[in-house]
């Protein structure tokens, strides 16, 4: 539904998005992860035709965004919940959006109801709390009943009820066969909502894989008085090794048995060899740990 083809954006000599190719499929929630400044928002803005790519292209349903006749009926997006005229009521804001795309007025009342904005819809947007602004933004994204939904940090500022609501909403939108693309820095949130993960760092693709696969990537903690020697040995065998401290290593890309055997072969004493619980948080940190490891981790995640 959404296709990024070698998408690149440079601002002066800084590359925000670097040769990013992706395909987002309907019926799934794709989590978009990356550290701050990784290029997530820039990539989303290019999909929406707000930023012009330096190279490559972004297609929605096979067409560039600006060729969509009524774009809000195809793509609903929430980029910045605060980007509403502070003196305009939420209802008037949605009404203007609806009119721009020939969406019936009744739909405004419907999305206000769906988003639980209630009486706050008549208040000036500048007086809304961040959580209420998020709900207004989500209402705007749902307005055109679109096949594609994009959310940039949608649970920001929401209370626990709101977070649960967004989680359920994204699941049900994907369940209806829509394409849902959501960026977040909350790894735990992604673990609960996403089916598929796209991880970028410094604008480059690090991982593009189903959630289970990212989580399944085995990771082993090793403590050894000869950590340096073992690290070199493991690396030579194609295992990705991260030096944690004087005596500590984290190895990915090999089973715990294989690492034990390799240590034995090398005649290296081990003080600890333990599997690390798979969490997205951990997987994410390993994936984005440093630029040196990008290439290797990418292979591991696939």
């Amino acid at each position, binding site marked *: 539904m959404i296709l990024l083809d070698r998408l690149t954006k440079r601002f002066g000599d800084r590359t925000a998005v670097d040769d990013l190719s992706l395909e987002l499929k309907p019926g799934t929630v794709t989590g978009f992860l990356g550290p701050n400044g990784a290029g997530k928002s820039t990539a989303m803005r290019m999909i*929406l035709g707000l930023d012009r790519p330096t190279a490559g292209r972004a297609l929605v349903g096979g067409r560039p965004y600006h060729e969509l006749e009524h774009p809000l009926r195809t793509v609903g997006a929430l980029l910045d919940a605060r980007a509403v005229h502070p*003196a305009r009521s939420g209802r008037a*804001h949605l*009404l203007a959006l609806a009119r*721009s795309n020939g969406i019936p007025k009744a739909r405004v009342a419907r999305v206000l109801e769906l988003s639980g904005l209630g009486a706050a819809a008549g208040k000036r947007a500048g007086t809304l709390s961040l959580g209420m602004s998020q709900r207004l933004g989500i209402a705007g994204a749902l307005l055109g009943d679109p096949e594609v939904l994009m959310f940039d940090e949608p649970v920001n500022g929401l209370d626990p009820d709101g977070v649960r609501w967004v989680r359920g909403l994204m699941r049900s939108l994907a369940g209806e066969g829509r394409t849902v693309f959501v960026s977040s820095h909350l790894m735990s949130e992604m673990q609960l909502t996403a089916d598929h993960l796209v991880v970028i760092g410094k604008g480059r693709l690090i991982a593009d894989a189903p959630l289970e696969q990212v989580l399944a990537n085995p990771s082993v903690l090793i403590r050894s008085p000869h950590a340096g020697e073992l690290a070199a040995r493991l690396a030579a065998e194609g295992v990705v090794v991260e030096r944690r401290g004087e005596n500590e290593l984290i190895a990915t890309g090999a089973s715990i048995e294989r690492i034990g055997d390799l240590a034995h072969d090398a005649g290296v004493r081990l003080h600890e060899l333990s599997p690390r619980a798979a969490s997205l948080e951990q997987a994410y940190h390993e994936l984005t740990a440093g630029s040196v490891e990008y290439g290797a981790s990418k292979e591991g995640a696939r």
Partner: protein
Amino acid sequence: MRNAMAAEWTKLWSVRSTWWCLAAGVVATVLGALTLGGAQATEAMREGLAGVRIVATEPVVSAMAFAHYAVITLAMLAVTSEYASGSIRGTLQAVPIRGRVLAAKALVVAPAMFAAGVLSGAVAALVTYAVLASPVFGGLTVFPIGEVVADLLRLGLFCALMAAVTVGVSVAVRASAGSLTLMFMLTMGLPLMLVMTGVQVALEVSLRMPLFAGLAFMESTDNMTGGPIPYSPAEGLAWLVAWAVLALAAGQVVLRRRDA
């Protein structure tokens, strides 16, 4: 295009600043017309100019040389408030063809300002006539309906074209302070500086900048140049239209090229 215009219409009237600008514009036009008309009438009485007649819209035109800043502010806010709040991104998501956004804004704001110009001018002309037609002011002020209507239509057109210039400039500049400064320089700052140089060429140029071109079109008799603008109303209209086209073209270039 109709959808984009409907959206702009909704946005324009759903913020209070629009109404404040309109109210300020009416007050400025009425007070300005009364003051300038009163001064004109008393001067005529003192100098005993027999047969002098002041059409009620004449001081209104003079007042509009100042009151039109309400129009400029309104038109500017219709654009710059979107950049200040970031809602321009929502606007461009809804209408991704950039030229269409610019055209919709201009086609909504300019006609609205035409109506505002005609209506505030009419109110100001009626108040001016009601006050200045009295014998206290020599009964010199008249209300010939044909001339008044023609003047009001020209006032409206002036406001509409000024609004179009402002929309173009604001889209090109994006920020409120910058847009307002540039509009002030285009309408007052630069032309007055050029006049002060005393050089003939500079004077000719200044007279063709947006405000003086508009005053020429409205056949203003009393303005900062000290008298009628020495060229035809049709030429004044042509210059003002040219400024509007230039500003909108500049806005279009920036809007298309820059990331939102």
